[in-house]
């Protein structure tokens, strides 16, 4: 399908779902997909699970929560492994988002694992970010530490059918009022929901629609698109550099330089710059993959 620049953009609303393991992201994806379908929109889901650092393989289990969607021709679910990509989110996910967008899906949900750097990657790939937390203070402190709260456009306290949801909602709202914001800035709503019971999901969908409308009227959508493109190009550059520098046998030619660092004849910095220079030469002399 379309290469750089030439691909059709159909205007899918790309929504990231992130939060602690087991917080209910997949269950929420299913519930949101069902609401979107009821509202006449088609839905693509990209579910990312971590690759094993030992074998490189992965068990992709998010579909377990969405099995009944498989038979709806208006829903397409694709599971992916992080495959050890820097920052967690596989670069294939960005391509999959493009494909689903080009295929005309109205809503594209991207579920990612873990907390931390992954979430920043989701933000760069999506228009709206939902951070899913669950009742109980521990998770929220974890999220705060990882800086995840800042990237949320919509907060969902899932498993609101459980005890302590009200407290978590109140605590989260209190925390968020401490974050200074410009007068016309988007104020991320904090919503309670039970993805398993499909309660409160309409409100989440409404909040996401509201956020998209805000992105459009404020000009932020254009800014986010720019950020996305920049981030993607930089990521591909990173991958190319890593591939060129660190691929199998790549350092063989530079052994002598590394030996000089060992003998303290060369600083690590000077050596790294020299390696980078050589890698750039090699990169120029071969085909660059898209």
């Amino acid at each position, binding site marked *: 399908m379309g290469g750089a620049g030439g691909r059709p953009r159909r205007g899918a609303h790309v929504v990231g779902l992130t939060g602690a393991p087991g917080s209910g992201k997949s269950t929420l994806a299913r519930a949101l997909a069902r609401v979107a379908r009821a509202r006449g929109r088609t839905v693509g889901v990209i579910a990312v699970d971590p690759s094993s650092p030992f*074998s490189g393989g992965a*068990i992709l289990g998010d579909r377990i929560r969405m099995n009944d969607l498989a*038979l709806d021709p208006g829903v397409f*679910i694709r599971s992916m492994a992080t495959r050890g990509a820097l920052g967690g989110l596989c670069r294939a996910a960005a391509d999959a988002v493009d494909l689903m967008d080009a295929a005309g899906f109205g809503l594209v949900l991207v579920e990612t694992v873990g907390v931390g750097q992954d979430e920043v990657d989701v933000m760069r790939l999506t228009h709206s970010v939902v951070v899913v937390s669950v009742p109980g203070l521990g998770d929220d402190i974890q999220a705060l530490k990882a800086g995840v709260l800042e990237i949320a456009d919509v907060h969902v306290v899932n498993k609101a059918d459980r005890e302590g949801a009200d407290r978590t909602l109140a605590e989260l709202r209190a925390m968020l009022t401490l974050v200074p914001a410009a007068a016309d800035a988007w104020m991320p709503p904090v919503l309670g929901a039970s993805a398993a019971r499909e309660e409160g999901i309409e409100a989440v969908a409404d909040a996401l629609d509201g956020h998209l409308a805000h992105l459009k009227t404020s000009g932020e959508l254009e800014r986010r698109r720019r950020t996305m493109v920049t981030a993607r190009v930089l990521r591909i550059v990173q991958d190319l550099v890593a591939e060129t520098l660190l691929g199998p046998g790549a350092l063989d030619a530079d052994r002598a330089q590394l030996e000089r660092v060992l003998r303290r004849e060369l600083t690590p910095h000077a050596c790294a710059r020299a390696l980078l220079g050589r890698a750039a030469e090699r990169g120029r002399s071969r085909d660059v993959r898209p």
Partner: protein
Amino acid sequence: MTPDPIRVLVAKVGLDGHDRGAKVVARCLRDAGMDVVYTGLHRTPEEVVAAAIQEDVDVLGVSLLSGAHLTLIPKIVELMREAGAGDMLLIVGGVIPDEDVPALRALGAADVLLQDSPPETIVHRVRELVAARQPR
């Protein structure tokens, strides 16, 4: 860079409520470096085939204990054919009477791995069958 890992979908169809075996197989394949989509218990042939198509897997591994293999597997084969998934390999596992194995192979199962197949055998067969398949 490393080649794309083999993608396998492991599915349990039928009514029986045990998926320990299927989970063990999923983990073995993962530990052998494969990406394994796991879809849980009680899947219908329709769900399994739709999922396998969406996930674009190399191998669809179907595990059955329920004894309904001679109705469920033909259904899956038919759905795969309808969906144009001709190059996807179907591997059947679980509790299958020896005398039914030839029938399943004749239907188009690339292999039938019985419940007591050691993990190494399963990993080896998946690799072998994927390698032998025509490049897409």
